[in-house]
Every structure is written in structure tokens, then in C-alpha cells.
């Protein structure tokens, strides 16, 4: 029997969702200040409207939803997934008010893409948008990379036991420190330290590349945010082709890879455990799959003779593959060049890299290296069992911060989520083909959206069917939150209608 949620449940979910939306409103202070500094008055007014809408919702729920209960697991999951939807609906206001979006759905698409660190966008005439709006786009993705619940935990919560349940609901499960609020702050400490170093490196390089100081700084900051969050937004429509610079690309690759590492790994390195970098199952898995997919793409591109020399070939192949594998979505080729220059094999290699993705509990999406590592180890364990004497006990371990015994439950969990991702990729691609897009094109875009990568071969476009926009919004959200909390929200909605 399904129990219908009671009034207290709604109040509890409303209260915490409201707090998170207040957090989104507070975040808008930064683009508001940016607009004021650059005297972009129309954009500043847009942000006043949008912040006010966030606060009206947030403080309204604090008044209406008064309860002292703490969150249970199902509440935590529902708040995490539900708040992403509410934050998307309200957070889309600045995009919509700017006049650069074809519909409110397009604005929501861009905001969900930002929060989920995907990087696909439908904004039109991007090259003429204000600094304030550009700051908001990149801030969305930077905040989304850490998780909007993490932001709220950092600044707005006093550390209830239920807070951990929201944190897990956002697709993170590592406790860097015993207390979840301290964990959220540790994540921010790591991210902000990288922000300072990464922005400084890109700013200095931008100056050397001939950018004006203000533009070099803003581009450095925004490109850092796009790279670290593995979001892939860039301030110009040319993405990172704009810079035409090997050194800029190298810095971007370092930041993308750093952003795609597990926060627990960052914390281990932060606290002096450097060996972890080469022992961790995720870094090993990532290195192997990145090398293999890059080799496949390089071989194919060399065979097709797309690039004139080995340096150009490697530079283009490695950058797109590193970007795809870290699920960032930066590119130094035009979107449609995936079709016109890279061809099906190059696209499939990129697709595999995107589908696998990077580390769990990072800013990245996709199936995750840890699951690929676990499944591979389990497979090898079974092979060893088959060739060992029947009486032999074959055990396998994997290393993630510490040595962990490979148990059936862990393998089952990894396989379940992997199957869920593969199903999501396949169904989304299927819908694309129903609309008449070629199979490889719709597969590429479906994997890119579902793995929160954001590389595009040109299918994503303001003129694409509305149903596909809704579907992509859904799979970006589903992929980022890793299914469970979205299913919890759907279950909550179902029990409201069908429960007793």
C-alpha cells in the first residue's frame, strides 16, 4: 500500500526547498554587482526582478511551511531533486528577461544545462549578451558543479542530521569530514583555491595572447568556471576556439581534469596523501579509457587525413577527447565539424568517452570511472575464479582512498547505475531518430546531454522540437542526480495522487 504524504511532509519539503531557492537568490548578487560595475542597467533590473522572485518564493515558504521536523531519507532526496527544478524555473528569469531566448522553455534548458554542468545552450546572439548575464551563466555552472544543495549547506544550514540526506540526494556521497556541513565547506575550500589559481593562470595567458586586461580577467574567470565545473560554457559563441592558443588549451585541460576528480581525492591530496592520485581506481580507470579513446580518434583522423600534421592531429584529438571524457564540453572545433571532419568513428570514440565520464562525487557526469573500474575488476575476478581450482577463494580489491573488498553488493550497485545510464542514453537517442535525425547524430547528442558533457554536433538548436528540449532537460537532470532522487520525487508525486 502506498501512503499519501501528509501535510507535515509537504511543509518539510517546502521549507528546505525554499531555503535552497534563497541560496540561488543570494547567488544572483554577484551578476547584479557585475551589471552595476559595467553600467548594464537593463541587466541589473533583470537581476533585481529575479532575485526578488527567489526571495518571495523562499521567504514565502519559510512563513507558510513552519515545521521543526528533521528530514528523512525520502524527504532529503525529494528536496534535492525538487529544488533543482524550482531553482531552474526561477533561475531562468534573467535569461528570459534578456530577450536572447526563444521561449521560457529555452531559458529553462540553459539554466538546467548550467546547474547540471552540461554546457549545451539555446541562447541566441550570445556574442552580444551583457557581462552580468555572462557572469550568471558561468556562476550557475560553477555553483552547479559543487551542487546547489552544497551551497545551501555551506551558508544557510546549521547542520541537521537530515542535511546529509539532501547532500546524498544531489549525487554526492563522500564525507570528507565527519560533519556534512564541514564537508560542504571543504568542497568550497578546494574549489575556491582552484578558482584563484586557475583564473590567475588564464588571466595571465589571456594578457599574453593580446586580450585587454578586463576582458582577459573576465574570460579567465569564466573559462575557469566552465572548465573546473566541467560545464563547458564559454563567454563567446566560438567556445575555446576563440583563443587560438596551445598554452590556453593546456591550462584548460589541467583545470578540466582537476575538476573531474573526486572531491575525496582532492581532499586526500590536500591533506598530503599524494600516492592516492596514482592508486585510486578512478584515476586509473580514467587514464586507461582516455588513452584508448584518444588513440581510436587519432587513428581515424590520421587515416582520414583531416589534419595536416601530427601536432595538429594530436592537439585537436586530445583536447576534444579530454573535454568529452571529463564531461566538460569545451571544444576547439566547430560543432558541425564533428560530422563534416571527424566522421562516425571520431564521433563514436568521443561518445564513449562522454558516456563513461569522470569521477563520482566530482563536478563531472556520466557513468563514472569508479563504476567502470569496479565492473572491470569484477569481470576479471570471475575470469580468475573460472581458471582457479574449485576450492580456491578468489578475492578482489579496489583502491579508493583505502583498499575496499569487492563485494557482490558493490558490483550490483555499479551495474545497476551503469545499465540505467545506458538505457537513458539509448532511449534519448531513439527519440532523436524518431524525429528524423541520423542515428549517430542523435546518439552523440543524447549521450552528451545525459552525461552532462555539452559537446554538440549541431542537433541542439533553438529550432529543435520542444519535446526534445523537454527530454534533454529531463535527462540532464536525471544524469546529474544519478537517478535515485529523481525517482524519489516521481514516487512522491505518484503517492500524492494514488496513495491512501
Amino acid at each position, binding site marked *: 500500500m502506498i501512503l499519501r504524504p501528509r501535510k507535515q511532509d509537504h511543509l518539510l519539503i517546502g521549507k528546505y526547498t525554499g531555503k535552497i531557492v534563497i541560496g540561488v537568490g543570494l547567488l544572483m548578487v554577484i551578476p547584479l554587482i557585475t551589471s552595476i560595475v559595467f553600467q548594464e542597467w537593463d541587466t541589473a533590473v533583470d537581476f533585481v526582478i529575479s532575485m526578488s522572485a527567489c526571495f518571495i518564493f523562499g521567504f514565502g515558504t519559510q512563513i507558510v511551511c513552519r515545521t521543526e521536523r528533521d528530514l528523512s531519507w525520502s524527504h532529503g532526496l525529494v528536496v534535492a531533486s525538487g529544488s533543482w527544478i524550482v531553482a531552474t524555473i526561477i533561475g531562468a528569469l534573467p535569461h528570459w528577461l534578456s530577450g536572447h531566448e526563444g521561449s*521560457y522553455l529555452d531559458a529553462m534548458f540553459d539554466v538546467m544545462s548550467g546547474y547540471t554542468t552540461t554546457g549545451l545552450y539555446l541562447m541566441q546572439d550570445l556574442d552580444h549578451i551583457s557581462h552580468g548575464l555572462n557572469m550568471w551563466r558561468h556562476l550557475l555552472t560553477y555553483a552547479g558543479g559543487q551542487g546547489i544543495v552544497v551551497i545551501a549547506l555551506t551558508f544557510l544550514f546549521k547542520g541537521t542530521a537530515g542535511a546529509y540526506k539532501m547532500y546524498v540526494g544531489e549525487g554526492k556521497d563522500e564525507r570528507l569530514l565527519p560533519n556534512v556541513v564541514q564537508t560542504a565547506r571543504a568542497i568550497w575550500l578546494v574549489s575556491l583555491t582552484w578558482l584563484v589559481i586557475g583564473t590567475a593562470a588564464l588571466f595571465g595567458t589571456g594578457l599574453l595572447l593580446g586580450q585587454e586586461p578586463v576582458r582577459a580577467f573576465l574570460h579567465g574567470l569564466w573559462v575557469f568556471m566552465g572548465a573546473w565545473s566541467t560545464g563547458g560554457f564559454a563567454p563567446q559563441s566560438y567556445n575555446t*576556439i576563440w583563443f587560438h592558443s596551445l598554452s590556453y588549451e593546456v591550462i584548460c585541460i589541467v583545470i578540466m581534469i582537476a575538476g573531474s576528480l573526486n572531491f575525496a581525492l582532492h581532499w586526500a591530496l590536500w591533506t598530503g596523501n599524494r600516492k592516492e592520485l596514482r592508486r585510486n581506481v578512478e584515476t586509473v580507470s580514467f587514464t586507461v579509457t582516455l588513452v584508448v579513446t584518444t588513440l581510436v580518434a587519432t587513428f581515424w583522423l590520421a587515416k582520414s587525413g583531416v589534419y595536416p600534421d601530427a601536432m595538429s592531429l594530436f592537439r585537436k584529438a586530445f583536447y576534444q577527447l579530454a573535454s568529452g571524457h571529463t564531461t566538460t564540453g569545451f571544444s576547439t572545433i566547430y560543432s558541425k565539424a564533428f560530422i563534416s571532419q571527424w566522421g562516425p568513428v571520431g564521433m563514436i570514440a568521443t561518445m564513449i568517452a562522454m558516456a563513461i565520464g569522470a569521477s563520482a562525487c566530482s563536478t563531472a557526469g556520466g557513468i563514472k570511472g569508479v563504476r567502470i573500474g569496479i565492473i572491470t575488476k569484477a569481470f576479471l575476478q570471475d575470469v580468475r575464479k573460472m581458471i582457479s581450482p574449485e576450492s580456491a577463494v578468489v578475492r578482489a580489491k579496489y583502491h579508493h582512498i583505502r583498499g575496499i573488498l569487492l563485494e557482490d553488493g558493490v558490483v550490483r550497485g555499479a551495474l545497476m547505475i551503469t545499465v540505467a545510464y545506458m538505457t537513458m542514453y539509448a532511449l534519448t537517442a531513439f527519440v532523436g531518430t524518431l524525429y528524423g535525425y541520423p542515428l549517430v547524430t542523435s546518439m552523440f547528442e543524447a549521450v552528451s546531454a545525459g552525461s552532462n558533457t555539452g559537446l554538440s554536433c549541431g542537433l541542439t538548436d533553438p529550432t529543435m522540437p520542444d519535446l526534445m528540449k523537454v527530454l534533454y532537460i529531463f535527462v540532464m537532470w536525471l544524469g546529474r542526480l544519478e537517478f535515485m532522487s529523481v525517482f524519489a520525487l516521481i514516487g512522491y508525486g505518484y503517492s500524492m495522487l494514488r496513495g491512501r
Partner: protein
Amino acid sequence: MLRRGKTLILVALAGFALVLGGCRVADNPQRSPNDPSSGALVDAPNDWDGKEVTFTGEAIGELMVRGGKAWIHLNDDAYYLKNVEEGAHLGGYNSGMSVWLDTELAREIDIFGDYKLQGDVVTIVGVYNAACGEHGGDMDVHAETLEITAPGRPAEDPVTTGKLLWAIGLAVAAGGLYALSRSWDSLSRHGSRA
């Protein structure tokens, strides 16, 4: 009661879908002045690789000087004569080409387009490279000549009175709710102490 609840949810969803679908018309008639356009160059790179092309577009962003040479970016999209901030209708993504040319030539461009500026419209003649060996495989045009065909200008994006009134009204409402929320919090704290 349950049926009424379901009906309300359905009506709300239908209303929401209508709001979402309420589009600004993407009917900007402006097309690329180029043949081949930037889109055609990306779609069929091998057809044009190594050939001389004439390319017109709005100078966008900035001039990036690299010694005696420089990079500029020319957009030949729906906004190359008038951008969205100036009231142009939506017409899809930006589209353009990277151009590598002598710094001296590039410095003839006065205005590069951004939020506050509509950039100079520039015509260049040069060789198109589908994957330039000199520039790490980038798709670009190496220009030999440059001509300003239309000067740039400031782009006005004034605040409308209606929008300003909305901002004031909503900010006041948000402030009021904040004050109410704080006072209820302090009341309930006093109540629990008593």
C-alpha cells in the same frame, strides 16, 4: 476532492506548458551576405579548403595581436547588421569565422561588437583553411585585404518603465516577506522560551 485535485494539477500543467511555449518569434530575415557562408564552410570544409574566399561579417569581441599578425572574428549571422540588444528579432545562434591577418590591417577596425556595441562590418579576402597547419588545425581564413563596409555604433538597451516598476514592486514584496519571516521566527523563539 481527489478528482478536483487532479483536474487542478492538469490545468496547472497545461497553463505551464502554454507559458513555456510562448515564444518570441525567431523570424529574423537577415541572412549571411557570404557565398560560401560560415555555415557552408563548416558543413563542407573540403569543398573550399585552400581556396580564396571573400567574407563579410561583424567584427566581434576584440582584436588579439600576436606580434605582426593578429586574430579577429567575423560573424556573418542574423545579427551582423543589428543585434538583439538593439531590437533585432531572434535568428538562431551566432556564426562566423576566425581570421588571421596583418596587425596593421586589423587595426583599421575601430569597433568590435559586444553588449554595448555593434561592431564594424568588415569584408576580407583571403585563403580558407579547413584545418590550418600553422594554427594547430584550426579552421580559419588567412586574409590579405580588409575593407570596412559599415562602421560600428553604440547599441542602446534602455530600461523600460514597466520593467522598472516590476522590479520595485517585487523587491518591496520580497523585503516585506523577509521582515515577516524574521518577526515570526523571533516570536516563535520567544514563545518556546516562555
